[in-house]
């Protein structure tokens, strides 16, 4: 045990001697947690819309006013012809074109039906699809308003329409930030822990100091623990910092138990650092370690369900996602922070993460050879 304290002292001294690393370690999660979720907001606001109104009637004016006042659209043009409006799309100035044909009001009143045209710039598919959806919703609601007016004049009862209403659980306003911020926090923790630990042992290989360690009676597990513990402590500080940013900047406070959240973070970090150290034991240079870590980090990021739900991935992708430790941690953080899940809800994920921690660290210790 005494040897371990000497190792820890040495590691901490080296970590704190590198001022840039220290600054990056703490500035990175704080700054990025403030910036990244804004960029990852999937709520589509201010869809650019051009209107081509061939009818110039009261109804067409009402429809346009209704759309404009919905708050989702920015009216960028009112053109005389569809062709003019199309140049807007070509120049990327508008996302959607709404074309109201001549005779719009007349046909609505006389025949109760009228087609209108919506054209979307599908280069940004998400924006086009969601914008189109919004527009449909607004028009449907306009339609329903018309229906009431029309049916009021008739004696027959209004047609029964199935109207679906829904409520969003755990994130009532369906705001993207509640979904994405805890995920980004986990991602940052993963990057910092993964890269720093992956580069550490290999740095000793590059400078040749590992040989001097290997010729001492320091045990393998002591050496690995000496590397793991300082980064674990730094990781927990980063995690705490991240939670504070969540609270102060986004007003997100965990619904569930904070100790449970920390228990997960603690074990997750052990697993992740073990992974980094494992890469370190296989690499011979920092470049190799960096590339290897980067390769896995990309997979971790995109497979983890941070951006897309794991459930909607094909089966093979889902099985990869389950082999990625971060997937389980993101899931649990969302469960605890947003849903307030308790211990029994997250138990399976806990077992997964403990398994990762044991396998990755055991593997790293096994693969670190004092005698080759």
């Amino acid at each position, binding site marked *: 045990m*005494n*040897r371990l*304290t*000497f*190792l820890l*002292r*040495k590691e901490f*001294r*080296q970590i704190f*001697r*590198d001022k840039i690393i220290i600054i990056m370690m703490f500035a990175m999660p704080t700054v990025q947690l403030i910036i990244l979720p804004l960029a990852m907001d999937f709520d589509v606001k201010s869809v650019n819309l051009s209107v081509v109104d061939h009818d110039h009637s009261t109804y067409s004016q009402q429809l346009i006013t209704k759309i404009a006042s919905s708050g989702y659209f920015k009216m960028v043009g009112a053109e005389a012809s569809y062709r003019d409006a199309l140049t807007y799309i070509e120049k990327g100035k508008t996302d959607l074109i709404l074309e109201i044909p001549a005779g719009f009001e007349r046909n609505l009143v006389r025949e109760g039906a009228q087609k209108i045209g919506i054209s979307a710039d599908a280069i940004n598919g998400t924006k086009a699809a969601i914008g189109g959806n919004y527009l449909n919703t607004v028009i449907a609601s306009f339609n329903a308003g018309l229906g009431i007016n029309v049916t009021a004049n008739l004696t027959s009862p209004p047609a029964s329409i199935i109207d679906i209403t829904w409520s969003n659980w755990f994130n009532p306003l369906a705001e993207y930030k509640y979904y994405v911020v805890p995920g980004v926090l986990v991602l940052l923790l993963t990057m910092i822990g993964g890269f720093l630990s992956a580069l550490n042992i290999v740095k000793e290989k590059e*400078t*040749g*100091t590992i*040989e*001097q*360690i*290997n*010729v*001492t*009676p*320091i*045990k393998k597990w002591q050496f690995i623990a000496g590397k793991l513990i300082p980064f674990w402590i730094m990781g927990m500080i980063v995690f705490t910092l991240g939670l504070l940013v969540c609270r102060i900047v986004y007003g997100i406070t965990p619904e569930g138990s904070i100790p449970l959240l920390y228990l997960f973070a603690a074990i997750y970090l052990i697993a992740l650092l073990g992974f980094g150290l494992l890469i370190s034991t296989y690499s011979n240079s920092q470049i190799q370690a960096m590339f290897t870590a980067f390769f896995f980090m990309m997979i971790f990021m995109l497979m983890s369900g941070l951006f897309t739900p794991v459930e909607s991935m094909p089966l093979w992708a889902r099985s990869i996602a389950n082999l990625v430790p971060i997937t389980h941690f993101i899931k649990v953080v969302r469960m605890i922070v947003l849903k307030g899940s308790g211990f029994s809800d997250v138990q399976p994920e806990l077992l997964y993460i403990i398994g990762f921690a044991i396998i990755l660290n055991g593997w790293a210790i096994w693969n670190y050879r*004092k*005698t*080759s």
Partner: protein
Amino acid sequence: MEEKVITCRNLTKQFGNFYAVNNISFDVYRGEIFGFLGANGAGKTTAMRILCGLSFPSSGEASVAGFDVYRQQELIKQHIGYMSQKFSLYENLTVLENIEFFGGAYGISRKEINKRSEELVRKLGLQREAKKLVGELPLGWKQKLAFSVAIFHQPKIVFLDEPTGGVDPVTRRQFWDMIYEAAAAGITIFVTTHYMDEAEYCNRVTIMVDGKIEALDSPANLKKQFAANTVEDVFYKLARGAKRENSG
């Protein structure tokens, strides 16, 4: 009878078809300065790494400080010091921090470390540099410090792999004074070098050529045996037969 601290019988290390160390046998006695000479690539470092427990031999037997190189490497490590070819103290730690860390790594108590490191710093004349980063010291001082750290835990044997490479002649002389002092204190010195004048300082010298031991005796006897004036001449006579490329 003198006590053997290293015994080596038919030791071989093979990498594929390449015999880095080919069937070497020798003994090293307590308190002697044992020189290991050879051109680059002759197998000196490989042999030394096996004896230090850093590398497994392919065949043959060897024991260091009474422990077997196959099964008891960690016990060997407790009783030896090692200074590698490449400077391997931590450049981003200070002189005192390096001493403290390696002292602790060998299980010396903190109190004892403090006492001994104070003495050591005084002996090396590094009082003013004690709190400086090792990376800022000149090479000669670094090497002297590395040697002092290697024997800080008072090992039975210290292995020095080309300890004076790139060091100026004055510092080399001082370095050998330190080696003599350590030997006088009972530490067996196992040193590789390709400076032939340094070979003259050794009690006994081994000359390795292409992984094999071609000669082993005291410098005086070697000169007699090969009818040469200096160990350097002996070396040239033997090394001329080398087949391996003399590089790297």
